[in-house]
């Protein structure tokens, strides 16, 4: 792929990877773990993510935009790296497929509850596969189109202006919180997806200004999370948020047109777009990793195998809560990856530079 990513497309791409099914439930987590005014926690978490992005920026700068795999392979023998790559691609493929399955199961609460969820899952996987075969540049273009298909939903929040009460927010901050550390990690997961920017290095050039794009995408996501959180706490109140499963969906249900009721079920379909980009990018990342181990096998074949393997594994969890637990565990791995990996890379780069100088 010769074409490089554009700055705008990259920003949108990052935003879209970060946006997933978590949008439906994160306010419940804010209320459950942080209690009153829990929406505020999004701000420190967002700053922390920005710092992490800054850490990754140094990898980009020190390595002059080399692929992270190149950096690793220069100093570490391949037989050590191969299993590591394998683990990475397994985690990424699993995240991708579980996110899709979670979407399907939530969707099925509202429509087609008795159809086999795997039918939908397979349909989504086929879409993902077709998109994957087009390459990253085209995925980023598609994600921009999907972005315009979904961003207008944010304007629906204006609908709640009349029902927003500051009294409901209460003046207390994080009272009735419980196990804030665990909550902090769970909220952090809402932002996950940005770490894939580590893999974008070879697909960018100077003109992309990759990290400016990543920060812009991340800021857009943060602002949107914070506003949605504020509205949820002001319209629903934290007492009730705690007991709701998908508060954002219930907020959507508030919207009623004179000629049509229950339009939230239609809106829900739009979230397929954001979910699709999330899973496509994780599958893509898995492919980036496996192609290093099997450089001779055609990339599309690798994608096919990855999606198929992930699909088979996703048969195992059938309960929404189990999937959530799995995603949590994988997400923690991913948080670890996003902090430790750039650190290792920076150290390697410094070491390589020193060796060169000597």
């Amino acid at each position, binding site marked *: 792929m010769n074409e490089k990513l554009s700055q705008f497309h990259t920003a949108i791409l990052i935003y879209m990877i970060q946006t997933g099914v978590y949008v439906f439930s994160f306010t419940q987590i804010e209320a459950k773990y942080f209690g*009153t005014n829990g929406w505020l926690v999004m701000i420190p978490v967002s700053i922390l993510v920005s710092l992490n992005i800054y850490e990754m920026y140094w990898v980009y700068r020190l390595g002059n935009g080399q692929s992270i795999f190149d950096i690793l392979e220069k100093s570490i023998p391949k037989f050590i790296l191969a299993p590591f790559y394998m683990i990475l691609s397994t985690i990424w493929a699993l995240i991708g497929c579980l996110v899709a399955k979670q979407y399907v199961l939530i969707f099925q*609460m*509202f*429509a*087609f*509850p*008795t*159809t*086999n969820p795997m*039918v*939908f899952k*397979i*349909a989504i996987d*086929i*879409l993902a*596969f*077709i998109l994957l*075969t087009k390459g990253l540049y085209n995925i980023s273009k598609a994600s921009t189109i999907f972005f315009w298909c979904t961003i207008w939903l944010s304007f629906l929040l204006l609908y709640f202006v009349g029902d927003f009460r500051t*009294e*409901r927010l*209460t*003046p*207390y901050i994080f*009272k009735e919180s419980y196990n804030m550390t665990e909550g902090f990690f769970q909220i952090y997961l809402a932002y996950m997806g940005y770490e894939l920017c580590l893999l974008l290095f070879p697909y960018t050039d100077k003109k992309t200004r990759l990290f400016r794009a990543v920060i812009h995408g991340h800021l857009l996501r943060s602002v949107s999370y914070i506003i949605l959180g504020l509205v949820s706490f002001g319209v*629903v*109140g934290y*007492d*009730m948020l*705690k*007991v709701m499963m998908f508060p954002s969906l*219930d907020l959507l*249900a*508030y919207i*009623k047109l004179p000629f049509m*009721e*229950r339009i939230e079920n239609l809106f829900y379909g739009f979230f397929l777009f954001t979910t699709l980009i999330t899973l496509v990018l994780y599958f893509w990342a898995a492919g980036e990793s496996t192609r290093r181990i099997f450089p001779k096998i055609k990339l599309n074949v690798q994608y096919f195998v990855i999606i198929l393997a992930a699909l088979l594994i996703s048969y195992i969890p059938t309960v929404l809560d189990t999937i959530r637990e799995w995603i949590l565990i994988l997400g923690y791995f991913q948080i670890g990856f996003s902090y430790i990996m750039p650190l290792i890379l920076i150290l390697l780069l410094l070491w390589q530079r020193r060796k060169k100088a000597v």
Partner: protein
Amino acid sequence: MLKKFISWLLLVCIIPLSGCGDQRILESLGFIQTVSYDILPDGKLSISFSIPQADPETTANREVLSAVAASSKEATMKVSRETGMMVVSGQLRNVLFGQSMAEHGLHGHLDTLFRDPSISSQVKVSVVEGNAGELLIEDYKQHPRTGRYIDMLLEKEALGQTIPKVTLFIFARDYFDEGTDPVAPILKKHADNYITTNGIALFKDDRYVTKIEPQNALVFAFLKGSFREGQISLELADTGGDKEIVMFSSLISSRKVKVVHGTEGIEKVTYHVKVTGSVLEYIGDARLSNDRERHELEQRISKELTKKANAMISLMKQHQLDNIGIGKYVRNSVGYKQWKQMNWREELEKLPVECSFEVKIKDYGKFR
């Protein structure tokens, strides 16, 4: 090319196939429009469903089904045995609770309604004075579909503030909020074959405790929040023997709540309500075109409203109810610890609440 073709073929096959699994054919569905709950002496529930009929071959406008069961879902299963249609609740608009049921507590049943994702959180909740099932089963001659009749009645009356607009979501929100108690509109079946709204039910947590009479419903709305649109008819205390009646409409009201702190904690809570409106009916001696006399009338209206509001608040205090949400303001004005230590209901009973009204007559119609 071949690969592309195969992927498309797969997609084309799979998407329609997923439609075969879970069929919902409009004609064979019975959309529950209204459901009513009553509690029987043995603790079981008597539940009735009203389902509009779409079949062009029947003359009936709707199908009414009833069952006695331990839970709502069990009743749905029972009644579906009595009908050829598949009973679904995706288009439910109204839930009616009989008075005895409301007095018994609603929480468990609201839980069912809230849990089911096919039921919208925008379903309206009302309490029926007497038996809810009887009200729903009855056919009202001038209103062919009872369910729709109830729905339109509630919708329209809520616009004029004579009853609050209460949906499942709003009821649950007030229930979970520590600083406020839920309310619901009251419906009543009249012997002369019609339904009327009959005031506002005040709940303590999920139990119906007492009600506000329909003629005072607007005063409740003044205290509950700011609104536009509404009308109230007031009979003012006689000024020298003659009766004075004023009809105050196109109301715009805004409310300010203040918590006054003294040396020993909270001293009092003050409600200041500003009301502007037009006088469209006036029976009395004052000349409305005279500034001084009109201002005096404004004073008298304020006094009357204040009196009614104070009576309403003492009624709530006496039952330890906080349906206008005083608790929210108190909570926000004291520290978190103090609020948690406070037994709000007992505190409320002792807390002085003062109301004051500021009434402005914007215009008085076409006649001087």
